[in-house]
């Protein structure tokens, strides 16, 4: 039986971290779409719906917080959203949770930990 890969939208403007996470998530069996800023996020979401979103908070054009708001309140999607936050960004994390984020992971991001968290969130749905 062929199981379809889960689609994951990874929004990370840092090329370094984005490349590493992209590689590890793909190796983890996900179909990853890596976008680098808010504009690309909007473009992607206009055409398709991923199974899960992993997003950085601070991005050009469109923050991770705004993305959560957009996904929950505009698109009315219930897909899991995991936010990547820097240490000392607790206020933003709380805002994201209030807007409907499911989980967060602090920088420095451990790819292995992210894989576990993604798997756990998808296991719930």
């Amino acid at each position: 039986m062929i199981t379809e890969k889960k689609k994951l939208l990874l929004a990370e403007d840092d090329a370094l971290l984005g490349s590493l996470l992209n590689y590890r998530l793909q190796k983890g069996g996900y179909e990853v779409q890596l976008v680098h800023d808010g504009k690309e996020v909007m473009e992607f979401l206009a055409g398709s719906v991923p199974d899960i979103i992993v997003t950085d908070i601070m991005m050009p054009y469109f923050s991770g917080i705004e993305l959560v708001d957009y996904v929950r309140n505009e698109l009315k999607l219930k897909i899991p959203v995991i936010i990547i936050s820097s240490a000392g960004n607790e206020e933003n994390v709380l805002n994201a949770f209030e807007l409907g984020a499911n989980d967060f992971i602090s920088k420095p991001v451990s790819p292995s930990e992210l894989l576990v968290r993604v798997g756990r969130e998808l296991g719930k749905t």
Partner: protein
Amino acid sequence: MNIRILLTKLSEFEATLRAYSYEQLKATEARELKDKLGAFRRHLEQKINRDVSEISGRESKPPGCHKEPEIQQSADFATTGTQKSKTGHHSEASESTGALEATYLTYEQINYLNAVLASSDIAGLVGRDLNAGAEKKSAKQAIQTKSDRSFKTMDMGNARKIISKTVQPDKGLKGASTRVDLTPVLEDCLGQLDLLEELVLLFKQNALEFIGQLKIHLQNMDFEGVRFAAHKIKSGLRMMKTTELLGIAEQIEAVCKTDRDVKHLNFLFDCFLEEYPKIEIAIDMALEKLK
């Protein structure tokens, strides 16, 4: 051949300078540095070639004939690029390091040289080739001594004035080899060296981009831009375990959030500029070790 290794390292210096000329330094400073390094390289090549020819044409001389080199004035070197040849009786290694010893080094050149010595064990490589009866003074010691003396006698007015509690050139340089360990990153890459190389490349690009952005934002007094840039670079710095640079970036971000002192920010920016080349060399060395 060990001399070739030295030349390779010099090429790396040039590459580093080339990468920074427009982002980090003023055009005139960059040109001056390049000219000096170019002259330094040419001089070294000429001297090594000449010395090697001399060595190959004569038998080994007895040890103990090493004469301490005199410190040359920078103006002579910078303008003419010529130095009088030393004709001491040394082993091949001593001759090759003698070429370095007889050459005036600028502050930056000393830094780069120290970084390479600290991180690549050139001295060890050269030292292994010393003849059994030759003088045992290691190349590293010789060059270090030269560097220290040059540092004391050089015109400090021409040296870059970087004084930091967190960044002290010599201390930082000596730790360059152990400061960056890419093994954990390679593990994150599941052992894929290609990916690690790509990440290192991205890291360098990010750092250069950051330097360029900061320079512009500081000129425009755009503190939010500075803060954002500092925030974004932190992730990569953390990933590459470059704690010194990370500390500077964190301080830049903190200053932007608090008093927005331009003078302090410029100082931190200078610290970053001072520290980054050493880190880049250390990263390259760490990458080489993993290959």
